[in-house]
């Protein structure tokens, strides 16, 4: 169904009345932006429900949680003023803070001149409410609540608060909703649904439903809101739902008598409490505020309103009758059709809760980091830019990139803890040792808006240094001027060569970038995420991911390199062609039941990283026999085994490493190195956007980041 555009609904009308300039901006954007203040369990949960209903939630406010994200995608700020710097068009605030802290949060929002403030918080001390009211009067804020269930505007599909999505708007065609209907204004939340139900059962739509709030002092009362609703052109009738206690109904009746022009449309009042036991009234002073007048009882309200010409009802049946009478049996939609639609909502199967990541979208034969395809990134971007993209969702500009390079190069210059590597120790284990012992890395700050990405970059610099420690190439590293590209630093660490070979350096960096991320499901990412959910320190969480990169996961490159090497040596030794040698070796492997590594992938039939690496190996001139073999190995395997398994990224990297005459274990080192950038990104995303100690169902993750885009 097509909704009514926001700038034609009642909420817009209210905003336009209070802040014409803001209304103009809303007209341009076509969006009414809402901020959620207070992100405890309730606020977070209802933020999601509001968003699902259609409310545009632009930001969240929670002190101490600035820089994190609400519902994985919505930025969170410490204060409303910081928030408005980024999102100046916010027009609605819904406040969910605890009653003990609601006052300051609400006054901040009011003083920031947000025109519509929905105060959900319940049980705020009256003295605090009075302070809030003083501020709201001064800033001409439309303050609804406290203790309101909220407001909902069904034609526009916008709500702020906790009202369920049951209120139904006018239908102007089978495809489109219209803005007209009855506005319900109520003191109670629970009763609202029953009024809506009663009216819908005879085809009467609601164009707005407002809960005024149940606390002892509230921002807007019937006397404020009924005239406002009636002034909106698409409201045909107003229903007020009052109850015993207080004096709102009597004051409304009084105002109707005094200012009838403010009440040009039909009004029906439902008052509940006719059969309630008489409540205890408060002390004397309260009662003499309106001398000689009794208020607060069912009878006082009924009499006052009837004397002002307002029909008063006390049951669903009578409400239907009175409203129908005043609307002359007008209907706004087909009732059977409405029930059918409601039934589809009720019958909808239970929606599995998904959770979101903005980092990498993993699809068969396609990997996209923040919307950019990984093969394009490998081709056009360096490691630091890619790491920056992973953490921040955008590439850095030149200036920032230079800042990042300095951080990384500086990190690579600093000494590393002494670590000994046992014979045949998996390189991932050696790296874990460095991670947990490295105080430089632990000390590097990660707070602040740029903390996450800076720490990631610093970490990548440290890993270059760890590698030089493992490969005993520290001398080559120390000869770096500090002004060279970071890829040169990596080259020095990996090769131990004090003179940088530009082509080889480029190739190494490309292989590393090809491995940066594969979403949240690889075991390494899972390990890091679980650690992150417990808020383990960065280096511990990343080390856990690194530790999970074993021969089983991520170790295929080194084995593939060894296999290719073996095949080529055999062909040289026996003077047979490489294909023949490979066939023979594979047959032996198959007979011995050994795995042939570098082939097959659980998702990709054509690994997206394959062609770009092959092309680069040709461009940089490093491609040799091994790369050649890697291009035909899949066909040979099919000839031997009778089944098709495509070469994967590990196989390609293994071949290139072998052609570059690097230690085969470097294939795995590159994989780990690249993946550390991805693990960092997942770590910081988890910390910023998810509750602590959550139960992570990895297969339920949904990519919620940027759509496809190309690198300019």
């Amino acid at each position: 169904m097509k909704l009514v555009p926001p700038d034609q609904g009642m909420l817009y009308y209210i905003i336009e009345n209070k802040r014409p300039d803001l209304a103009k901006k809303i007209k341009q954007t076509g969006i009414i932006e809402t901020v959620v203040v207070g992100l405890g369990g309730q606020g977070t949960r209802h933020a999601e429900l509001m968003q699902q209903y259609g409310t545009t939630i632009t930001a969240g406010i929670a002190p101490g949680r600035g820089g994190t994200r609400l519902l994985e995608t919505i930025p969170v700020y410490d204060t409303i003023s910081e928030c408005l710097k980024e999102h100046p068009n916010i027009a609605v605030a819904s406040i969910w803070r605890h009653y003990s802290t609601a006052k300051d949060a609400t006054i901040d929002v009011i003083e920031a001149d947000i025109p519509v403030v929905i105060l959900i918080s319940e049980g705020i001390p009256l003295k605090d409410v009075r302070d809030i009211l003083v501020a709201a009067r001064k800033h001409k804020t439309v303050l609804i609540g406290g203790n309101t269930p909220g407001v909902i505007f069904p034609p526009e599909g916008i709500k702020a608060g906790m009202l369920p999505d049951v209120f139904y708007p006018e239908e102007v065609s089978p495809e489109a909703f219209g803005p007209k209907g009855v506005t319900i204004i109520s003191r109670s939340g629970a009763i609202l649904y029953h009024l809506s139900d009663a009216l819908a059962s005879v085809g009467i739509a609601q164009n707005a439903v407002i809960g005024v709030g149940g606390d002892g002092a509230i921002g807007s009362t019937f006397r404020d809101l009924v005239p406002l609703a009636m002034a909106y052109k698409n409201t045909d009738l107003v229903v007020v739902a009052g109850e015993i206690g207080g004096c709102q109904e009597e004051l409304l009746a009084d105002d109707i008598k005094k200012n009838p022009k403010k009440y040009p449309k039909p009004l029906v009042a439902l008052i509940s409490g006719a059969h309630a036991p008489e409540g205890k009234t408060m002390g004397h002073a309260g009662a003499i505020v309106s001398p000689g007048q009794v208020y607060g009882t069912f009878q006082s309200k009924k009499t006052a309103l009837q004397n002002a010409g307002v029909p008063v009802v006390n049951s669903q049946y009578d409400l239907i009758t009175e409203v129908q009478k005043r609307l002359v049996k007008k209907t706004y939609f087909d009732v059977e059709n409405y029930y059918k639609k409601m039934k589809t909502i009720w019958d909808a199967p239970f929606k599995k809760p998904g959770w979101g990541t903005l980092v990498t979208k993993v699809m068969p034969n396609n990997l996209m980091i923040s919307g950019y395809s990984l093969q394009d990134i490998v081709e056009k971007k360096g490691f630091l830019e890619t790491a920056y993209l992973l953490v921040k969702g955008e590439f850095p500009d030149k200036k920032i990139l230079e800042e990042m390079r300095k951080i990384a190069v500086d990190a690579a210059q600093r000494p590393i803890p002494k670590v000994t590597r046992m014979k045949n120790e998996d390189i991932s284990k050696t790296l874990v040792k460095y991670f947990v012992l490295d105080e430089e890395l632990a000390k590097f700050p990660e707070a602040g808006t740029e903390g996450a990405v800076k720490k990631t970059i610093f970490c990548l610099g440290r890993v270059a240094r760890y590698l030089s420690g493992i490969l005993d190439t520290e001398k080559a590293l120390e000869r770096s001027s500090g002004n060279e590209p970071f890829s040169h630093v990596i080259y020095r660490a990996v090769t131990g060569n004090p003179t940088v070979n530009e082509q080889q350096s480029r190739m190494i960096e490309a292989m590393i970038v090809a491995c940066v991320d594969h979403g949240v499901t690889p075991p390494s990412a899972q390990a890091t995420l679980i650690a992150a959910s417990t808020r383990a320190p960065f280096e511990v969480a990343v080390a856990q991911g690194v530790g999970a990169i074993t021969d089983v996961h991520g170790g295929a490159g080194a084995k593939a390199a060894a296999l290719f090497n073996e095949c080529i040596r055999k062909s040289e030794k026996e003077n047979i062609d490489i294909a023949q040698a490979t066939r023979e070796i594979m047959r032996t492997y198959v007979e011995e039941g050994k795995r042939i590594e570098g082939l097959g992938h659980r998702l990709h039939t054509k690994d997206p990283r394959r062609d770009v690496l092959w092309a680069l190996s040709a461009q940089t001139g490093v491609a040799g026999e091994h790369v050649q073999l890697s291009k035909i190995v899949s066909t040979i395997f099919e000839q031997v085994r009778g089944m098709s398994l495509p070469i994967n990224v590990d196989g390609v990297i293994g071949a290139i490493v072998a052609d570059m005459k690097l230690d085969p274990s470097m294939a795995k080192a590159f994989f780990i190195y690249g993946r550390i950038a991805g693990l960092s990104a997942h770590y910081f995303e988890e910390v910023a956007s998810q509750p602590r100690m959550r139960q992570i169902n990895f297969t339920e993750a949904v990519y919620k980041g940027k759509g496809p885009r190309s690198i300019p």
Partner: protein
Amino acid sequence: MKLYEYEAKKVFQTMGIPTPKQYGVIHSPNELDAIPMEFPVMLKSMVLVGGRGKAGGIKKAKNREEAKRIATELFKLVIKGFPVECILLEEVVEEAGACYIGITMDPATFNNVVIVSASGGVDIEQVAVEKPEAIIKRELPDNAKELSKNLTRELAAFLAAQLKNKKDITGSLADIIAQVYATYQRFDARLCEINPLIITPTGAVAADAKLVLDDNALFRQVELLEMLGITEKRHDVAERTKNELRAQSAGFPYIDLLPETFTKDPKKLYVGLIPGGAGYGIFSIDEVATIGNRYFHDRVVPVNFMDSGGGPPQNRVAEMFHLLMDYPVVDLIVTSRFGGISSCDIFIRGMVQAVKERYESGKRMVPIYGRMVGTDLPSARTFLERAKLENPEALRYVTIYVGNQRIMADVIREGIQKALESKGWKP
């Protein structure tokens, strides 16, 4: 939360508002012997309700013997449903004039109002009607922490002019007005009142003190409550029924509509309500009464108010059903769950839990008729369907409509009709 007079006076003392000398507070006539005092003495019944004087709850005693006799009588008194449980023994003050000072929040504008009147010691409402010129009312739209000097002077001068005291008491009256307001603001009061403030030859004294605290702010008035020795929230209601006490300890608002001792009319159907939030809690009483009156010859009696909204946990939901099923009066339970803040799922689990427990332990079962719509409905529905398959006997008399095809009034009407039919009555 209302404070007793002697407690309010303690607060006044800390704020520098003069009060008569308190000799002590007793809980039985015998305690009187140990208290040193000068006679004559005032004996004041401490109850949390107005009109004590008229009800004979305040007496003067000339000597200890008379005091003891009066105390014994006062302890037998029940004032507007409140039994006298303690008595304040206080100095008698010599009266040369009396006035009224009160601060509260205007229920129409939510501003603080200061009210003073030179006609103290009488019903202030009566003064407002009969002699409005004797009252000054000032509304304070800024919620200031303190009253301005100008205003306190103005109000004090008004009082002093009418009291026509020999000595100029404007200054001390202004101080008291300022302190009453400061007390009101500092202790998060809903009402702070002195009636009467007695003008003695030596100065003004608060002969009575009324202080009602804002329940919402009790959490931050720890020091005050500690000073008064109040450890738990006081309920300003007369005497609570067994059901009400049980609901209170389970953590949900509940009020019996019928007297505690009560004989069922065998011709009538008694309906218990588990209706959702407070608003529908009130409205559903009306609905049941109206429907009974209109369609069932006034033979239907709603028995309770309950606020079952706000997302109660499963065990509390179960307790709501247990309470009404343990209440022998109830013939039918009508329930409505409109899950906004609260989840239909948790609600239905709580209901099924209670019904199963009762069925398995052979406790009294009452038919349930109701409806649920809103948050978590699909899972709630799945759960209920499975529960009905697994426990067909236990859930035999549970009818819950899912969705809003039937409005609640129709569900109530149908439930009552079925319940009456099952009793063999023709509607």
